[in-house]
């Protein structure tokens, strides 16, 4: 592999990692507040389809991503209602959300499958920065949503770790009873975190249908929602590490094709297994590391009931 192909690989890694980044950072937010949402795949699909439909009808892709965020938020709100208000089982609700979201997206998108998109997020060649050798093509020739994902990841990191809101979110995820005792509304914070998480997942889906592919097909996410869930653990519930993790996973996805074009004699079936093999490997390593390092919110997965102490 020469320098050019490495540069091309890294540039593609960022693009392929962007839908994962949106979704993973959103899930970090939800899980930090103590709510596990396994419905990421469903929320991404609904985001992808609502974004696509709105963009096709209004011919405005910015309205499209707003709609995608709204679509993801609606689904997340269902999950929040079940898990926070009804104190239901978060795993079951999340899985149901994935199935529900997949079906809803197929249903909504029935008449939009394969339509060409006139307005989409095109790569922008940023003047000056884009001309820097090596770094330019890797970092500064992407579409607006790539930069949006980085900005949002940084913003959510800042909110979670540098503001009193973030302290509330983390407190609610660690010890909801204590947070409640100091006057934080546990359910309000959790609702907010889960819904923001849904918006991010919706944006991740819209990245596929409005920038990357860009088209609508059933199950366009093809399991990326699940990789995003795994990424949250990989990132130890930290948005900054999620940036790194997303690009790493994007890189593995891109690599499966680059190995083929480079002429290595490796079975393509083995190669398409790589991202998932990598996911399992990462989970094993991280789980071993977790014994020493804190990260997982203590109250993750447990509904909070004031009367049950």
């Amino acid at each position: 592999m020469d320098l050019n192909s490495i540069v091309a690989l890294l540039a593609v890694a960022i693009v392929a990692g962007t839908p994962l980044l949106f979704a993973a950072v959103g899930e970090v937010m939800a899980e930090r507040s103590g709510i596990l949402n396994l419905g990421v795949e469903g929320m991404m699909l609904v985001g992808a389809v609502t974004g696509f439909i709105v963009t096709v009808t209004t011919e405005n892709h910015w309205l499209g991503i707003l709609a995608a965020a709204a679509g993801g938020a609606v689904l997340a709100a269902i999950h929040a209602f079940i898990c926070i208000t009804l104190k239901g089982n978060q795993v079951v609700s999340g899985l149901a959300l994935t199935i529900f979201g997949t079906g809803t997206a197929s249903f909504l998108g029935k008449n939009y499958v394969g339509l060409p998109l006139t307005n989409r997020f095109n790569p922008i060649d940023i003047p000056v920065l884009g001309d820097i050798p090596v770094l330019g093509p890797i970092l500064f020739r992407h579409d607006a949503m790539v930069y949006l994902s980085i900005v949002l990841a940084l913003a959510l990191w800042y909110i979670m770790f540098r503001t009193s809101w973030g302290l509330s979110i983390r407190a609610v995820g660690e010890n909801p009873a204590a947070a409640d005792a100091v006057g934080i509304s546990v359910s309000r914070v959790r609702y907010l975190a889960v819904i923001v998480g849904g918006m991010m997942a919706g944006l991740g889906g819209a990245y596929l249908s409005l920038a990357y592919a860009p088209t609508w097909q059933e199950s366009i996410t093809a399991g990326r929602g699940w990789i995003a869930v795994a990424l949250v653990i990989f990132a130890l519930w930290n948005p900054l590490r999620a940036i790194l993790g997303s690009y790493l996973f994007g890189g593995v996805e891109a690599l499966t094709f680059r190995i083929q074009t480079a002429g290595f004699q490796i079975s393509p079936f083995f190669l398409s297994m790589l991202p998932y093999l990598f996911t399992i490997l990462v989970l094993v390593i991280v789980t071993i590391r977790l014994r020493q390092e804190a990260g997982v919110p203590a109250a993750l997965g447990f509904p909070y009931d004031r009367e049950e102490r």
Partner: protein
Amino acid sequence: MKWRKLGVLLLVLAFAATMVVGCGGSQDTSAPDQTEKEFKVGFIYIGAPGDAGWTYAHDEGRKYLEQQIPGVKTVTLENVPEGADAERSIEQLVQEGCQVVVANSFGYGDPMLEVAKRYPDVTFLHCSGLQTAENVSTYFGRMYQPRYLSGMVAGAMTKNGKIGYAAAYPIPEVIRGINAFTLGVKAVNPDATVKVVWSNTWVDPTLEKQAAQSLIDAGCDVLAQHADTPAVQQAAEDAGIYSIGYNSDMRKFAPNANLTSPVWNWGPYYVRVIQSVIDGTWKSEAYWGGMADGIVDLAPISDKVPTEIVDQVQAKKQEIIQGEWDVFFGPIKAQDGTVKVPEGQALTDEEMLSMDWFVYGVEGTIE
């Protein structure tokens, strides 16, 4: 507590409602004004007609059938999973009164044979299948013929002699297409090579785009595809290079890049077969039609292609249609340069249907 119960109830209702709506939505047609004369044909689709690809082409055929034989009424079931679910769907169509049931994917074979046993008076048509029965026909097209012609176009239009081919799965159908395409390329441009990457998916636009991107980064300046979405076309359009489509005329997805597409044209076949069922002359067959029957064809060639190339392609097309020549006539060399099909010989249908080797000029592996 009351609220909680009410909430659960509402949710259950909401889910139930979407299920009902969802199922209802998958049935395409139509007003139940059934008259005695009506002849009902049911279609089982692996995808949805909007995919611009495989199912779209079949649905165009269905529409053509309705147009050509006025008494025929069609019913479709979309996105039917292969396997046990398919059996139920096929049976459902029969019970709705379909006299012919058409299924457009390989995996519907066994369920269809099962249902066919129970309904000997109904005719069944299985696309790309291997096994026929008294009342079950299989049908497919010699897509390799227009693929060869599209290869000629690609070979003429490449500047650096590097052509990329984003392929789905390493199965005989796809391998046959790659080989035919490569032979077409070599016929007009002996130095050019065809680089193959496998995406291991029929319908995943993002992975297909990745595959295309990797070929572009490897220096390819013309891309071809064997998968069901136009993602490869879009990647070529973005990169400012040329591309060859598949399934249906893909010009609208890449007006500048797309040069032509090998396309399916199921309509005439459906009309012919359904008419013979209506007339009572139908017999079970394993049909593998070529360009002469019009079941496969080459979409109009872009005006970016020089006329002498277009003329060459048209001449070759006539040879194929007249039956004077076919793609896998020798001499053909295998990937390693050894002679696989000597001069004066040709591959049999059986050899073509089980093809598991690349011709000379393909860069890639079958594992």
